Structures are given as C-alpha cells and as structure tokens.
C-alpha cells in the first residue's frame, strides 16, 4: 500500500505538467501505454465478474482495500490504453480518505485533453470508471462514517 506524498490537486497538476511535455498525441498515447504496462499486476484471483466494470469494448477489474480510513485501489484491464488511464486515476485517488475521493474534481482528465480527444463512447468508459471508484468511496463512507484514525 502506497501512501501518497502529494495531495490530489498536486498530483493532478503534476500529471498535467507531464503531459505538457509531449507535442503529439502519438507520444501521449505512447506514454499512457507505458503507464499501463507499469501498472502492478492484479492477482488473477481478483479477475472475476463481481470486480468487473464492463465497458463497450474492454473490461476493467477494480479491487478496493480500505485501511486506516484510507481507500486503496488496484485494477487491471485487457486493453492497454484503458490500463494507462486507470493507472493515472489510481495515482490520483488511491490511498486517500473517502471524503477526498468523493470530492475530487479530477480536472486533470480535461487538463491533458483526454475528454476532447477520446471519442465520446470511450470517454464515457473513462467516466464510468471514475464513477465506479467514487461509488466505492461512498459505500465505505456509509459503512465507516467517522474513519478510525491511527
């Protein structure tokens, strides 16, 4: 479990700055794919239907772990670009409190030009993943309204 050093806003800013280094979408995609390849492998035992967020063309498996009032995500996808996008979402949201996750604006998705560049259907897939991650945060918040602090 990695505890993030930066706040959500700082992490988002960092990602936007990283993307600003690339001139072309070809390079951006190459970077996203690289992030996807580097995403830690998900134990195959988690790749079951109940963890599956089904998109139109690709599948995503999303697993959560709630500890010390913080929510951690692990995920995998059969498609590499989606996997890279998940990797960024995990970098921003994993290891945060449920309140931080629920309130996260995630402006970086727009900031790196993803919403305008991805076709509507695929962009929706990304948004449904964000929704799913926030749903989990909400569910844990309801179960544990006053997070236990160590």
């Amino acid at each position, binding site marked *: 479990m990695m505890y993030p050093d930066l706040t959500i806003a700082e992490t988002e800013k960092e990602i936007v700055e990283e993307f600003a280094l690339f001139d072309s979408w070809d390079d951006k995609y*190459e970077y996203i*794919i690289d992030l996807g390849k580097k995403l830690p492998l998900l134990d195959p035992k988690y790749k079951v239907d109940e963890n599956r967020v089904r998109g139109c*063309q690709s599948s995503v498996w999303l697993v959560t772990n709630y500890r010390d009032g913080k929510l951690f995500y692990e995920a995998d996808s*059969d*498609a*590499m670009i989606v996997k890279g996008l998940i990797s960024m979402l995990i970098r921003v949201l994993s290891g945060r409190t449920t309140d931080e996750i629920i309130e996260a604006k995630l402006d970086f998705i727009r900031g790196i030009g993803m919403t305008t560049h991805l076709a509507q259907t695929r962009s929706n897939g990304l948004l449904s993943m964000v929704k799913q991650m926030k749903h989990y945060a909400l569910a844990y918040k309801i179960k544990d309204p006053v997070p236990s602090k160590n």
Partner: protein
Amino acid sequence: MNVSLTIPKPLDIIAIRQEFPILNREIKGKPLIYLDNAATSQKPQQVIDAIVHYYTNYNANIHRGIHTLAEEATAAFELTRDAVKSFIGAGSREEVIITKGTTESINLVAYSWGRKNIKAGDEIIISFMEHHSNIVPWQILCEEKNAVLKVIPINDKGELIIGEYEKMLGPKTKLVSIVHVSNALGTVNPVKQMIATAHAVGAVVVIDGAQSAVHLDIDVVDMDCDFFAFSAHKVYGPTGVGILYGKRALLDSMPPFQGGGEMIKEVSFQKTTYNDLPYKFEAGTPNIADVIAFRSALQFVKAIGKEKIRNHERELLEYAHQELEKIPGLKIIGKASEKVSVVSFVIDKAHPQDIGILLDNRGIAVRTGHHCAQPLMDRFAIPGTSRASFAVYNAKFEIDELVKGLQRVVKILS
C-alpha cells in the same frame, strides 16, 4: 471473323473520391482514411444535394395532399420504390416496403408473419454469423410462442457448415433467416442453394442483405427468397431508410405491423380496413427526404456499375489480405473462399480497442469490437476484432497507411 476485345477500364478513383466531400476532412490533423464502410458508407454529393433540394423546393407530406408540393413529393418518393424494385429485381413495386432500416424490416417479418404463423414446437433456423438484429427478433418470437431457435454452425474459415444446416431442416422448420454476407467476416453465404433446400421442407426464408446489397448483384426472383431486407445507408444512401422485399402472396396474407395513418383505407370505431400493399406496412409519415435521396444513391451505383465496383473492391481486399498478413502477430479472422470487402483481424497482445484508438489518432477509421455479433466472437474465442471494410472510393494507398499504422501499433504495444 469478328473478335471484340473489351478490356475493362479501371475506375477513375480520383474522380470518384471527389464526389464524396467528407473525404476532404482531416481527423486529428491527418487526412481521413475511412475504412468502416460495413458500418455505413459515406454519401456522394448527389445524395446530399437531393436532401437539400427536397427541403428547399418541395417539402410536403406524401400520398394525401392534393396540392402541388404534395404531388411532387409523392412522385419523388414513389420513384425511389421503382428504383429499388429494379435494383433488387423484384417482380412488382407493391412488393417493396419502405422501412427505417434492415433491423425494422426483420422485426416486421418477425412481428407480422411470425406471430401469425409460428406455433409451439415450430423451429426457426438462423446461423452463428448473424448480426444481433437477425438473432434477437427471432429469440423474442420463439420465447413468446414456445418455438425452437436452431443455429447453423460455422467452420474455422468462417463458412456455414451446409451439411449441418441440411440435417436441421425438417417438417418442423417454419422459417430460415440467414445473413447473405457476414458483417464481421465478409463471408458470402450460398443463399440460393439454402433457399431451395428450405423451400423443399416448406419453410419461409428471410435473407438479411444489409451487407450484400451494396456489393453483390441482387435478384430476389432468381434467388427465390421470400423476404429480403437491407438498409440504404450502407449503399451510399441516407440513414433511416430500409427496404423489405416480400413475395406478394405472403405480404397479402400478413397482418399490419403498426397501426396509424397511411396504412388504412377506412377507419371507424367499429372497424378499420387496411390499405393495399405496400402501404399496409407503411404506417405514419415516412422519412420522405431520405427515401427520395436514396434514389440518387442507387443512380450513383448504377452509373459506375456494380461489377466494376466489385472488381475494384476485390482488388483492395486481396491487397489488404496480402499486406496485413506481413504484420507479425496479425491473424485474419474469416478466410471464406467466397468473401467481399471485409477484413477482420486480431493482433497478438493488442486489444482491438487500443488498435482502434491508435489508428484513429492517425486519421484511420476502422471498426473494433464484437460487431454486434457476440456469438460469432465466442465461436472464435476472441473478445472482438478490428475490421477494415472497403467501398468504391477506397484506394491502395489507404491500405498502405493502415498497414503503417498497424506496424506502429505493434511496436508501441509489444
């Protein structure tokens, strides 16, 4: 001795491309390469002009008004019916029903003919390579009537196993509904032979011509199908227009599909008498502008000639097969000996969605996914494919760009 040597002139692709204004578009800073023609073809200027001309000059509701605009609109609308009749070789114009697409045409048969004629225990035969729109209407019907849906298997090349089909046919077979050309594989099915064997057991045959109408010469009388369904938008025409051809005796015996205006003769609260064919099946105001413009699309195809278009597309298909197979890890799905204009493929370690996004980034439009044929994808144990499909305006340089794009995809993803 007279020997006439006719060497067929190749198509003037540059001139043809100029008729399609959308081909001038840039996608993400690159010229559009449109290889998703099996989903829908682009429209030539004359089709676009016909729509504009209609709304600019003679927009009116058809078949009822006696004013000039209504008469002009009605005449133009009915000219499309005549053009379709000759396009598919139908015996009479009353056998040409105008719908909103192939899906609606098939649903019309399932709803109207099916509900009247299918009973518990009856069998309906479809195949493994059907589009969802030629699966689901029959599933709904079978569920409602307690009938049985049977599915013709296919071999590894993506061809129907005709021996298995013939074994399925029997006294319980009431209907066979088969795709003429597979949207996901490009396979051309031997429908004429299949229709004859189905008729031998007294079954009615529906042919889903969504993919075939634009590529093959269609002669519904020679084919002897009972119903033939296709869409205008895959034949260079507008969206929202479809055709259902049906043999007159069958259409006459069928109850209406939807109730409303246009399809009635007289209405009282005691009894309504239905209009004659084809209007009995055309309730409500149709998609007048697009139906009228469809005639321009048929004129476009006729002016070039289907055979010339087919030869051009065959050349592209052969070239695509040859070049794509050079890409390491690429496997073509569907290698039927009879196929048209579609090449579906998978690449090791490359998800179709990634391929689609990366090609789109180079301005190349292909279709990725299950192509609304999930059972077929399951048959090949793949989640989906990438599919390039060709039309009259495509050229070899576009296939070269596709290959270059895919080489890059392989490099990035491996």
